[in-house]
């Protein structure tokens, strides 16, 4: 087990695509870091640089105290779980798990012991003689995990390991991986584009955008204080509503916005921060016409049209209100729940 230190990491692909730019990140020993970001933002590239599957164009990568920039993947003491599992289709599950150990010259008895241990931990003991194609998606996922486990590496790397599973299984495996990681406390770098996965699994979350880090922090920090409009829009579902400050001023009293810095010309409002209760002290009011009420069991989404604004404004309520479409509704909102941004830089301003 070891820490991972990224020092100004850059990746320029042959052909000139700059996939990763100046990434600085220290991953503590035993920490679980989740990388999120839109498709093509460089998540996989960064992970593969750590794995040694892509050369590092610039910067320094340390695993533990060793600079590993020029080491072969095999020599970095990491294990990786691939999105499509990358199980060797022609080998039995046992051999899939054992292959890495064999290549490293482990004794037969030791290989056997480790494989069985991992298999037991993952409850795939009864499949050891099967070929991967004879397993279900979830079982394959476990074998892929097992292949990483047996090696007892310094770090685990995961590249969207759950994206091929159906919704139910995804939830189950998410919980299992998280529990396993908490138990083993192996340093882990986990790539996903699934918000829920990102929020629930991470010790710290890294949001990447176009090859750069937008923000690093605990899921809660990112959710409650997104550092940029990008993060604000990316974390949380339905996404944060964004209103020009100028426009907002026409709807609410000047007081409501007084506490915000001058430079805040774009204001974010989370749909779930709105409520239908009448405004209380420290709260402001916002009125819109209900275009569509989407009831969804315990909660509901309300699509609103604010006077003079083209975009739809969404509110999320923890119940299904008894209102009808086409009527005007007034919502209340705590003033400190406004997220102020500078639209030019995209940075949060308070």
């Amino acid at each position, binding site marked *: 087990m070891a820490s991972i230190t990224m020092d100004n990491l850059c990746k320029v692909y*042959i052909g000139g695509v700059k996939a990763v730019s100046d990434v600085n990140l220290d991953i503590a020993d035993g920490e679980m870091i989740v990388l999120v970001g839109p498709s093509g933002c460089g998540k996989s590239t960064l992970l593969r640089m750590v*794995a*040694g*599957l892509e050369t590092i164009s610039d910067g320094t990568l340390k695993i533990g105290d060793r600079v590993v920039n020029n080491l*072969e*993947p*095999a020599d970095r003491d*990491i*294990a*990786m779980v*691939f*999105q*499509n599992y*990358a199980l*060797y*289709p*022609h080998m039995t599950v046992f051999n899939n798990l054992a*292959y*890495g150990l064999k*290549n*490293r010259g482990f004794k037969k008895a030791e290989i056997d012991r480790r494989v069985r241990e991992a298999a037991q931990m993952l409850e795939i003991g009864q499949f050891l003689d099967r070929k991967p*194609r004879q397993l279900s998606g979830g079982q394959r996922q476990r074998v892929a995990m097992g*292949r990483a486990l047996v090696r007892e590496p310094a770090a685990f790397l995961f590249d969207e390991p759950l994206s091929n599973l159906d919704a139910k299984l995804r939830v189950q495996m998410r919980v299992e991986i998280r529990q396993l990681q908490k138990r083993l406390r192996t340093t882990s770098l986990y790539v996903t584009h699934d918000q829920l996965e990102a929020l629930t699994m991470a010790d710290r979350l890294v949001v990447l955008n176009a090859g750069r880090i937008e923000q690093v922090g605990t899921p809660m920090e990112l959710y409650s204080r997104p550092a940029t409009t990008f993060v604000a829009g990316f974390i949380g579902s339905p996404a944060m509503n964004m209103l020009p400050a100028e426009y907002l001023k026409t709807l609410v009293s000047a007081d409501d916005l007084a506490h915000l810095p001058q430079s805040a010309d774009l204001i974010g409002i989370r749909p779930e921060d709105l409520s239908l209760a009448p405004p209380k002290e420290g709260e402001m009011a916002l009125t819109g016409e209900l275009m569509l009420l989407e009831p969804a069991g315990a909660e509901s989404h309300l699509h609103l049209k604010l006077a003079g604004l083209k975009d739809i404004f969404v509110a999320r309520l923890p119940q299904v209100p008894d209102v009808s479409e086409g009527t005007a509704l007034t919502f209340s909102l705590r003033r400190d729940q406004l997220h102020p941004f500078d639209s030019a830089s995209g940075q949060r301003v308070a």
Partner: protein
Amino acid sequence: MQTKRMTFSRSWLPYALLAPQVIITLIFFIWPSFQALRQSVYRQGDAFGIRPPQFVWFQNFQALFADPLYLNSLKVTAVFAIGTTLLSMSVALLFAVMVNRMIRSRDTYTTFLVWPYAIAPAIAGVLWWFIFNPSIGIMPYMLDMVGYNWNHRRDGNDAMIMVIIASAWRQISYNFLFFLAGLAAIPQSLIEAAAIDGASRMKRFWTIVFPLLSPITFFLLVINIVYAMFDTFGVIHATTEGGPAQATNILVYKVYRDGFVNLNFGSSAAQSVVLMGIVIVLTVIQFRYIERRVNY
């Protein structure tokens, strides 16, 4: 057999659509095959077909399997088919592995390697025959410099090597394309997983890539054997005509020769029947393969 989950229903239309192909198949494939079966139990009267044929039961077959020359032809065919297959497949695999690692030059190399497929086997035969021509060919000249006295007119082995090279040459393109497609279909992540698992380049090839290519390899094996057994007629006919001393007299060539040159229709038909048997066996094997491939 699969269809669409929903199909049209028209009583006569499908039959009309199938008719051209089925009729041609019946007339030019099925009927002649029955003719071959029938002829194989007759001895023809005379070359010109003036006297009527005689029913001889299985004499043609008995004669065939008692004939050391036929047995020789079986052996020659085996050597030729295996030689051609191994040569073209191994060279093609080597090329494919090399080209597969190229990014920018991939298409260029592919272009240079695919076109021999366009060359007719007969022309391939003529080309190599010319190259190996004892008096003017470049190869015997070069071989002579290293002390080898090349003469495919006299030496059965030389002749065999020549027809194998001529036949394999054209087939390299074919195998190359399939291997390349096969290699491209191997998920890069498997290679990467193996790299992380500490396997060296060679080890990755032999423990991951090669086994994963095995369905393609097997498929090509059968296809190449079929090619070598049947499609190489032109190579043989345009070059050695089966010689010297029947050293390159492969089965299809013998069918033709005994039928059209030696005018021994009964024996030729019997040989056709044997060949059909071989083809059917190969097809069944291929079928098995298709099933296997689906499972992979």
